[in-house]
Structure formats: C-alpha cells, structure tokens
C-alpha cells in the first residue's frame, strides 16, 4: 500500500491523503494439494532423520517444519495442529496421525491417504462454518496491529525510548490493519504501514468510528505518541508529542478524555536501568496532560470496565521482592480509588496483564505471564469475586481449568502462547495466539484467532512476515458509567478514613489497643540507575540501581511525614498531601513497627479514601457492628511531624551518624572496640558506586556478596539489627516479623549499653532507621562514587524529569483555568 502521509507544519494534525487502497486480502483455505504435499514431505523427512540426527537438530528440524507449514498453509495447518494430541506430532505413523484426527470428526480414514486428507479438510471447513456461524453473521470487523513481538528483559519494558537509559525494545516494521469477516473467512485491509516504525495499542471509541493508537516512527528521531484516527476518512490527529517521552496504551474514558501510560514521570526502575511509565490523562485534543499515577515502577495495559473503573497491571514492590509482584489494580478515571483488583499479596499469578472485561460479566480476561518474560503467556479468566489471591479467582482457558498457584519467575513460557485477548461474550473471544509458541523458530508470529473458552479455535488472520497482535472489535459499544469526579486541584491534600486497623489480615492476632499510631512515609524514586547492589531473600534475588543502601535495604528513598493517632477502637481519620506515593506503618506504644505496608497509596487532590482496616480482604464490605468511631467523632487530624522535620529523605549520615559520634565512637572506633561505628565514607563499593561508612556496614552486618557482583549486602535477619528485607515475600508478613521491635540493639540501648547518655529521642531515631529498612542515603546522589560521565548521565534524566514536572504543573494550572471558563 502506498500511503502518503502529510505532516502539517508545526501542527499535530496528520492526514492520510490520497490513500490508495490496496485490495482486501482474503485469508481462506487455498492450495490444499500443496498443503498435503508439504505435510507429507515434512513428515517423511523428519521420520527419515529422526534416528540419525541429534536431539537439538531434530528440534530445529521440527521447528522448521512448523514454520514452513504455518507460513504457507496457516489455516490448514492450524486445523492439523488443533486436532492432534500434541504440537510435536512427528511421532507415530502418518496414517495413525491422520486417523486419530479424523476420529475427532467422526470419520474413518481410508487406505488412500490423499483421499482421507481431502475428507478431513472438508470436515474441517464444515466445522469452521458451524463454529463461526454466530460470530460471522453480522460480518464483524476487527482492527489489529502487526509488529514484532516485544521481547524485553521484563515484560513491561516496551517504551523503546529515543534516549533510553539502557535496554531498548524496538523492533520496527509495523502495520495497522483491519479484518472483516467475509462468510467464515477473514479479509484483510491495511490502514497504515510503517517499515521503520511500530504501531501498537489500538483502542476503538465507544462510537465504533474513531481509533486511538500509539506510534513510534523511528528509533531515535521519534517516540511513541498517541494518535487518533477517524476510520471512515482516515483523518488522523496526533494527541501527544515530544521527543524523549513515550506515550503508550491509550484508552478512551467515559467522559471522552484519554488515559495512557507515559514515561513523563521521568523515573527509572529500582531493580534495573530502564525507564518507568505511569498513568496520565488528557483530553481528546491532548491538552491538560495530568499525572494520575505516582507509582514506583510500571503501570501497564489499562482497560476500562463497564462500571467506569480502569483496571491495569501495577508493578508493586515497595519493601518486598520485585519478581512476583505484578498484580492487577483499579482506579477511577480521575485517578481516585487506586486499590488492589487481584493478587496484590500473592505469589501467583507472577504477572496478570492485558485485562479486558468479558462483556456482561464482572470478570476479566487477561494474559498470565512471567516477570522476566515477554508479554505473552497463558490465558485466564479472572473473577476477583471468587477470591483475590493466588489461583482463587483464576481459571485458565482454553479449555477451562484451574491452574496451580505456582511460584515461577518466567511463568507460562512453554507450549501454546496467548496475548491480548478481546472477549466477545462469556464463551467467545478473539486473541493473538500461537499454537507452536517456543516450539517453532523465533521470533514468534502470532495469528488473530477466534476462540471459545472450551478451546475451539479458528485462525482468522496470520502473516508469515510479522506477528498479528491486539485484535479489537470495531463496533459501537455502550459507553461505560461516567463517574462524577470529586477531584479538586485547588486542594493540596486528600483524606484517609480507616474504620478499624485490626479488621484486616495484616494484624491478625494483634491484641486490639496495641496500635497507637500510623506512620506516614513518602517514597521518592530515582531518576536513573547508577551502580548496582544485590539483594536476596524469600522473594528471590534482584539488583538495586542507584541503591539507597546495602543489598536488602530499602528500595527507595524514604521521607517520613510523621504520625497520626489510631484510636482505641482502631479508627483513624487524617489528611495527607495528595499526588504523592505514601505508605503506612502501624506502630505500637513504643513507636515501633508492628506491621508495615509493602505497597503504597496515592490520593488525588480533595479525594477522601476509606478502608476497613489493615489489608482487609477486598471482597469484604465495612464492618457493621460498631458505633460511630472515635476518629469520626474527633474529626480529621493533620499529620504530627516526626523527629525529622522538615521532611527530607532519611539519611544515615545525617540522622544516625551524629548520634553515634556523640555516644558510641569513643569506644567503637575500630580499635578499642573492634566494631567500628565511625562515619567516614571510606569504604568504596565499586559495584553500588556508593561510599559507605564502617558504622553503616557494621550495623547492617553487611558482607560482600558473591552473587552477581561483589557489592555489600546487609543481613536483614541478624538478631542485633533486623528489618523487613527488600526481598521479602510478596504475601502478607506476620505482625512483628522484623524491625526495631525485634532488634537487640534497641533493647540494648534502652537498657543503657556502655553507660551511654543516649536519649530516648535518639533511640527512637535509630528505631526509625531500622523500621525504614536501614536506608543509607536520603538523596540518590548522596555518598556517590560516580564518575563525571555517570553524574552527567544521572543529571540528564534528573533535569528532564524536572522539566516534565514543570510542564505537568502548567497543564494542571491550565486545566483548572479551563474549569472556570
């Protein structure tokens, strides 16, 4: 297709002018003779080779056979595959392979293989006609994308940023295409092709006429931006722009605004060097671009539910391991109500993504994949009402079966592969699917399939030169519920109401009355990664870039805002700054952590968010059996500032070392007492690129690790000083599992160790340091041992982030102004 694209000077509007339509290409069965020959030739060839070539060669040989047959006879070969027992069907005699397949059609094979194959193919055609009768009746249309399957090191690293910090997933050669059913065969027309770009994430408007998608046209001279196209005229509009910012996964909101993921947050992942995308919103012209997610790492694949909520995957590993923590989250379109949807405190699914609501139900269909995996994997129906953790609410399709709740990093990377489901109803769905998966030569080429939850399938469209992805039904659909927004950008704060802290699973077994306060802590994320620590614990192993401390210490910089009271009945009602990732710690009468939230929460300005208790099951409603709470009667509290005021990132050197200098180093100088508590930054860690003090390394009982690198790693389980490891398990911890309350050091100091004159306030500071997971730096650039280039590298992304923040602030201002017009 020759599509001329006219760029309007200085503008964002694009027109597909004089679009020479390529004739539609029908994907029907043709050349059955060729197929039969190819099938037999491959079978014979492999059988001939089976005993003479190595296992590896055989695997390759079979893979090549799949590729040839799939490439040339996609539909015919798919029937052959689906009617067989296993993908590697080169086992038996050909006659028995054929006869077994024919039995599935209640047919018996004849001696003449050629004739039998004809009978078999005829039966397959008839079956297709029966299967697709309902779907094809209204001649449905589907839009889909062609691009090479994303293969990043972690499933969500797909931004391919022009100025990427590190790895860059960008495999050009793409097409936006349209599928229309013509009887039971699909005809394909091209909408847009770009041999040097990637088009992804199509999303059809509720009116069935307009289409959002994301497009990056060049490796370094463009980034993904959101476009909208009127499909009838081909008229296109670019909604977002800016080199160095990737905007992906746009969806329409019920009020016609757009929600999308963007790297404009300017942060970098904790456990690697790659950029992060968070959720943003703007209007349909691309104006008033506001940040809704203030999230540690990636949020992925947002989808709108009929009740107006947005469901998305949120990578979520504050103070816990990063491998198994890609749960599904939900929010309202204005960013309020951010909360767990499925699997927040759960090993399984490792990752649930590509959520799409099954029309007419309150269930979603999603791809279940791994952490160090591409986006494809197994296909699931998730019903959060059946349970919110592990496999409780997960059924795999097709056929329907409950999966085991396994703990596997690269989950689902075997056998058939699914990605990007598009449920049509409770039974039928469209999906990007590969029956051969890893059994055929890579890269994987997915086809667009019609499928049922029972496992019936028909291949609609395949392309032997590219992968077909992201089918989206091109049809009018009911506009989801438009929820009234309560966000008020004039207000700096939001309010939390907690009904009863003891009600949740997080404080199981804790005597009511134990919790006196909640500590409110802000997380501050890095702009870029320089240097790597190595963590290991029950949640697996990981790197930490621009590390905040030794291995196993906190992932992110912690800023303590202070505490609020929890009343005797467990209630609390308090105001916090909005648009900020905050987490809470339940404190006892000593001010020590009983339970800590290993996730975070964000409020929009003016939002009031309520919860029942400490990690209550999300299928529960508020408790009925209590009177109006004390908190309610007392009204909204402000945060009481902590010992660290003004609010800054917790730095060991700033907060703890002066105490040690005053009370400890007179003995603990490394010679009088072997355990040095001196504060000179004399230990240079080449791996983490930090300069540590002996005091810090000794108090964290750090040792050089032999895993991956030789960086310093703390011992989070040491009786003297222990803490919740950054690599702790994803599931809920027991109260008092670690921290100041279980560290001997605190008991020792309280008893008056070595007759020091250390004050209770100073002991509290040390306890706080432990309960924040022993951070060393309060600023990512503190105590660095970076080269000039590394400093420049960091500063480049830092200043880019600052500029983006300023632009966002201006967008918020303009938005507020627009409301008054």
């Amino acid at each position, binding site marked *: 297709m020759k599509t001329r694209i006219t760029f309007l000077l200085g503008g964002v509007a694009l027109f597909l002018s004089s679009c020479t339509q390529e004739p539609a290409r029908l994907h029907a069965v043709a050349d059955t003779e060729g197929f039969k020959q190819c099938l037999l030739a491959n079978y014979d060839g492999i059988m001939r080779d089976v005993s003479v070539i190595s296992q590896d060669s055989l695997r390759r040989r079979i893979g090549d056979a799949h590729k040839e047959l799939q490439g040339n006879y996609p539909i015919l070969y798919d029937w052959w595959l689906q009617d067989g027992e296993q993908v590697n069907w080169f086992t038996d005699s050909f006659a028995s392979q054929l006869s077994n397949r024919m039995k599935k059609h209640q047919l018996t094979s004849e001696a003449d293989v050629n004739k039998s194959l004809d009978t078999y193919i005829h039966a397959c055609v008839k079956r297709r006609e029966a299967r697709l009768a309902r779907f094809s009746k209204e001649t449905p249309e589907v839009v889909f994308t062609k691009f090479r399957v994303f293969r990043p090191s972690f499933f969500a690293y797909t931004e391919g940023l022009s100025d990427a910090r590190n790895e860059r997933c960008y495999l050009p050669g793409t097409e936006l295409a349209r599928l229309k059913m013509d009887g039971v065969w699909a005809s394909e027309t091209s909408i847009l092709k770009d041999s040097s770009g990637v088009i992804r994430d199509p999303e059809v408007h509720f009116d069935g006429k307009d289409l959002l998608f994301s497009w990056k046209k060049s490796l370094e001279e463009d980034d993904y931006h959101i476009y909208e196209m009127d499909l009838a005229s081909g008229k296109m509009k670019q909604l977002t722009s800016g080199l160095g910012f990737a905007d992906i996964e746009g969806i329409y909101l*019920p*009020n016609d605004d757009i929600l999308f993921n963007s790297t404009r947050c300017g942060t970098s992942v904790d456990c690697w060097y790659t950029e992060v995308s968070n959720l943003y919103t703007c209007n349909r012209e691309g104006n008033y671009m506001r940040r809704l997610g203030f999230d540690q790492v990636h949020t992925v694949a947002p989808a709108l539910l009929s*009740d*107006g909520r947005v469901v998305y995957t949120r990578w979520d590993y504050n103070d816990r391991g990063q491998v198994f923590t890609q749960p599904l989250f939900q929010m309202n379109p204005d960013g309020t*109500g951010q*909360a767990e949807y499925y699997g927040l405190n759960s090993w399984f699914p490792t990752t649930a993504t590509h959520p799409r609501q099954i029309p007419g139900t*309150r269930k979603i269909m999603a791809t279940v994949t791994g952490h160090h995996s591409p986006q494809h994997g197994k296909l699931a129906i998730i019903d*959060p*009402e*059946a*349970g*919110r*953790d592990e496999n*409780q609410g997960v059924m795999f399709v097709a056929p329907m079966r409950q999966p085991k709740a396994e703990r596997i990093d690269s989950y689902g990377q075997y056998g058939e592969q699914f990605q990007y489901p598009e449920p049509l109803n409770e039974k039928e769905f469209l999906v990007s699917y590969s029956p051969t998966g890893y059994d055929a030569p890579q890269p994987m080429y997915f086809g667009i399939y019609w499928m049922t939850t029972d496992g019936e399938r028909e291949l609609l469209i395949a392309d032997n030169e590219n992968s077909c992805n992201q089918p989206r039904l091109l049809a009018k659909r009911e506009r989801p*519920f*438009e*929820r*009234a*927004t*309560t966000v008020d950008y004039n207000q700096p704060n939001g*309010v939390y*109401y907690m*009904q009863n802290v003891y009600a949740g*699973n997080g404080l199981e077994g804790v005597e009511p009355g134990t919790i006196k306060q909640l500590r409110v802590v802000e997380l501050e994320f890095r702009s870029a990664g320089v240097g790597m620590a190595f963590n290991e614990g029950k949640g697996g192993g990981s790197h930490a870039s621009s590390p905040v401390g030794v291995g196993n210490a906190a992932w992110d910089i912690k800023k303590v805002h202070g505490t609020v009271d929890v009343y005797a009945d467990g209630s609390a*009602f308090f105001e916090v700054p909005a648009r900020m990732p905050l987490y809470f710690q339940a404190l006892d009468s000593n001010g020590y952590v009983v339970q800590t939230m290993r996730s975070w929460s964000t409020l929009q300005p003016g939002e*009031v*968010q*309520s919860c029942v208790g400490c990690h209550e*099951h*999300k*299928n*529960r*409603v*508020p*408790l*009925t*059996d*209590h*009177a*109006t*709470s004390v*908190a*309610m*009667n*007392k*009204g*909204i509290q402000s945060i009481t500032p902590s010992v660290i005021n003004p609010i800054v990132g917790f730095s060991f050197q700033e907060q703890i070392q002066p105490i040690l200098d005053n009370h400890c180093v007179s003995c603990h100088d490394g010679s009088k007492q072997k355990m040095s508590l001196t504060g000179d930054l004399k230990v240079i860690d080449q791996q983490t690129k930090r300069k540590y003090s002996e005091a810090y390394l000794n108090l964290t009982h750090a040792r050089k690790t032999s895993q991956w690198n030789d960086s310093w790693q703390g011992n989070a389980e040491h009786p003297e000083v222990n803490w919740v490891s950054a690599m702790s398990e994803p599931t809920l911890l027991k109260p008092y599992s670690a921290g100041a309350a279980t560290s001997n050091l605190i008991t020792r100091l309280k008893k008056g160790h070595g007759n020091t004159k250390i004050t209770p306030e100073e002991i509290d500071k040390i306890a706080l340091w432990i309960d924040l997971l022993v951070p060393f730096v309060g600023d990512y650039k503190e105590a660095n041992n970076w080269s000039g280039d590394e400093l420049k590298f960091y500063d480049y992304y830092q200043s880019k982030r600052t500029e983006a923040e300023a632009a966002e602030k201006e967008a918020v201002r303009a938005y507020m102004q627009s409301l008054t017009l």
Partner: protein
Amino acid sequence: MKHTMKYTFSLLSGCMLIVTSSCTNSAVFAPEKLLADPNGANIFLVDNSGNKLVKFDRNTRKQSGALQLSEAVNNLAAAADGNVWVLTGNANGKLIKVNPNSMKEEGSLSLGYTPSAVCEVGNSNVVWVAQRHNNEVWKIEGAANPAAAKVATKVTVGREPIGLLPYADDAKILVLNNLPEEAATQFPTASTLDILDTQNGKVMGRIALPNGTTDVKDGVVDKQGDYAYVVHLIARYQLPTNQLDRGWMMTNAMSVIDLRGDSLLTTVLLDTPQRGAANPNDIAISLDNNMLFVALAGTHEVCAIDRNAMHERIESSREGKHLVPSLKSFDDIPNDAGFLHGIREFYPTGGKGTRGVEAATNGVYVADYFSGEFKCMAPDGSATEVLLSGTPLMETVVGKGDLYFHDATIAFQAWQSCASCHPNGARVDGLNWDLLNDGMGNPKNTKSLLLAHATPPCMITGIRKDAFVAVRSGIKYILFSNAAESYGNEIDAYLQDLQPLPSPYLVDGKLSEKALRGKEHFDKNCATCHSGSYYTDGKQYAVSWNDGADKEKAMDVPALVEVWRTAPYLYDGRAATMDEVLQIHGPAEKLSNDQLSELSEYVLSL
C-alpha cells in the same frame, strides 16, 4: 396513549410453548405485589396505578378478572377458605375479603392506619393484621364474615410493621418492622423483628437485626418452617459518605431467622463485591424449597439463591471452616460480599422496578412496576415472557422521576438508589449520615423529602440553596453519577408531586382535643420559627444543644408536616420521640408534663 403489548415467545424449560395473541391495553399498568393462588389456578397482581386487583389465569395465560378498589392496595394474602385477603388505604384502612372466582368483595372491615400485612391463624376466622402507622398488630376475630368481625386485641410492636410470618403451627408470628426505632445516636440502631405469641397476644421476644438495618421490606418462611428469610438494607451509616465501592454506604441483605430457636442465625449480603443488589423488595421460595428469589427493585433483577448451598456455607462457617476466601469468622458473614459467590445468580428482568416476585412451578413470576410488565422467567433466568403489560408509569415525567428515584443503576455499581436512604415515598431511614457537604465527622439525620422543594434551603444545615440543587448534588455526590442533568428534572417533578399523609394522631381527620390544647402552647412558643403553612421560616439558627464538630453551626428550621413519621428527631437524630425532643428543644415557657404532652400531641398531628 395506546400501548401495544409485546410478547416474547419463549420455551421455558419444562413449560409448554405459549402462543399468545397481540392485544392492546391503554391503561396505565403498575404491578407491584403478587400472590400465587395456593390451588394453583391464578396469580393475583396489585396494580397500584389504579387501585386495582388483577387476576391472571395461569392456564389460559390471560387476565381473567379485575376488581376496582377505592384506595391503594397495600398487601394481599391467601385465605384458607379459598378467598383472598386484601388490605387497602391509609387513614381509612380496610380488610377486604375477595372471592377469587367472581372477583367481588365478600365483605370488608374498617381498620386502623395503613393495614400492611395480614395472616390467618388456625383458620380463616381469626386473622392478624399489621397496622403500619399505628405500630401495632391487631387480632381480628370472626373474620369469616368481615362485616361483623371484631378487633379483639391490639399489640404494640416495632416501628412500621409491614410483614407477618406465622410459624410454629401458627403459635407465633414473626412481625417485620420496617424502620429502626431508636435515637440515631444510639448503638446499635436497627430495625427489629417482634415475635408475637398468638395464644396470649403478647410480644414474647424481639430479634435485633444487624446494626444499621433499615427498610425491612419482606420475608418468607421455608416449607418446613425451619427458617424465615427477611430482606432489608444494612446501612454502613457510621462512615463518611465518600465512596460507594464495596458497599461503603449501603449494603443489601437477607437475614436468616432460625424459627426453632427464635433467633437470628446470620445475615448474608445479596451484593457482590463489585456491584450492589440494590433495594430488595420482595422474596419468594421455590415450590421445591431449594431456591430463594429476591426481587431487586433498584437493579431490576431477580436474585436467585441456592438455599441449601447457602445453609451449608453458614453451617460450615459456624464450625470454623470458611468456604470462601474472604471470610475469616462466622460473625463476619454480614460483612462479606463474597459469601454467596457462586451460589447466587442475578436475572435481569428486562423491565424497570422489579417490586414483586412469586415462585411458579417452572420459574418465577415478576412484577416490573415502572415498565408496567408482569412476566414469567425461566428458573435459570434464561428466558422471559411478558404475560401482561400496559402503559408504563415511567412514560410520564413524574413516573420517570419516580423511576429514577428508585433506580440504583444510575448509581456507581448500582449500590443504592435515592430510595435507599429515603424509602417509602422519599421519606426517612431513621439513620444519621456523614455527608461531606458540611465537613466530615459530623453525621446528620436523614430528612424526609416531602415538601423539600417548597421549603428551601435544604439539608439539615440549609447548605443547599434549594431542593433543585440538592437533588443534583445527591446524584453527583451520593450516587457518584455525572449525569445529574439527565435525571434531575424528573426527580424534581416526582418529589414535588408527593402528598403528605394525614397524621394518625388526628381524630376523624381533625385535631384531637388534646392536640388543640397543644396548639396553644405551639403558637405561643414555637410558631415564630416554625411558621407558615409548612411550619418553617426557612432560616438557620445556632441552637443550644449542638455539640461536637457542629457546636457553632446554625441549623435550618425543619418543616413539621408529617413529623409524626420522621423520627428520630433533631439534627443528629438524638431524640427518638417527640417527648424526648421537647426535653431538649422545649418551649421557653415552663410547661407541665401534661402540657408538654399536649404540645407533643399537636406537633405529631401536623
């Protein structure tokens, strides 16, 4: 207006294929209560658009008779002698015996105020009638001949009795009371059930429903007489009204009463974690005793519950084995929207305002009030056949407003409708709510919306300029819908159309002598602020009994029309009765207790 009846041809499983002919019915048709004739031939429908009792013949699948009554039909019940008991009217309540064959009155008896439920004890000669606005249950003897029947006993029960469920071989009656009767500041506060001993005519016990229970609508006893199932709301009124998600304000429930032990077994939520089952209005049990069917008036659905599976879960939980992942203890069942997962289904009726449900041999009959349809649904909800229809109530502006007011599907996740807090014709739920319009942590008592448009400003503090603004704010901040303008005008029209009921304290429609004496005290002490036709000057005053977060806040002078039914009183509902009000907000003049009682009588007569 002419309305063509539409028929859906469907083969209900186990049913014959029904062939019906098209016919027209131009009259407004608003079916509510349903009664299946025990001998199987007929279904009786209450059509309250025209005070009509309609008979539908199950064999011919046609309307086979109707009876025009002079006042609205409140309820009906089958009589053992083959007749049908019908209750009509408010101030002039009547018990009418209707012959189902002739569809003629066999006789009637004048009763008290709003007879709302009737049941027989032993035989058709002794019936008990709930008198909603007398807060009493009356025993009628000689009912076989209603004209000569006598009221033998009057028993005081809870607030606004609306259902009577005889059990234990008629030795007892479970009385369902619609509203909480406590001060709203009291804990617990909830509707309570009474157990009436039919032998001695006394209340022998009370069953407290979970805290926050309000708007009890209906109940049913299983065929063995083991359990009663009572549908109602559980308001989570103690919380700020900042969100609807996960039943944060309102949940919709069914209490399971152990009739052998005269106690509450537990209360299950009809809601799911992601969508409410708003405004349960009626309940029926299948003929085989296996299924419970609840009419959800707010979501236009039938909620079908596998009764045996539910009891298995309850029993298992009592033994410490919890069969759903969200449940941690038996006591938490009323807080678990996951409890019925997988054993309860929702069948949309396709109509609007599902107010009545009755079990049939092969499915359920339903009455869709606003869309004017009487239907039969397959037992699995898969097919629906319209049996009777007429011009829907929702074709007029007021009718549309009435629908929107009762329609939870205009709210986020259908958790509640306007009628959840303002039930019974936009009146009160008896509870306090912490709306965010005047700050948080200062709950206020629900006001009746009667005359709201005529008495601006609105809300307890008068913070909304008028009811037009308040209606739209309610849609936005309480239902969380961005479509206030789509519903506001019609809801205004509906609310403006509401008529006050005369007070049950009036004698023959006039003030009693005691009330007349009370009027003098009122005119002298109260009428300055409580002035004008609705007894309010529309101004706000700081009052001495304000406390907490509202200590300095001025409160709007409330109208007093129909104040007899809007308890509890004062801005935070701290006074359960008018006598209690006068102890706190009494006249400046020192009055004796008798005089205060006169004043109270007058105010309650308004």
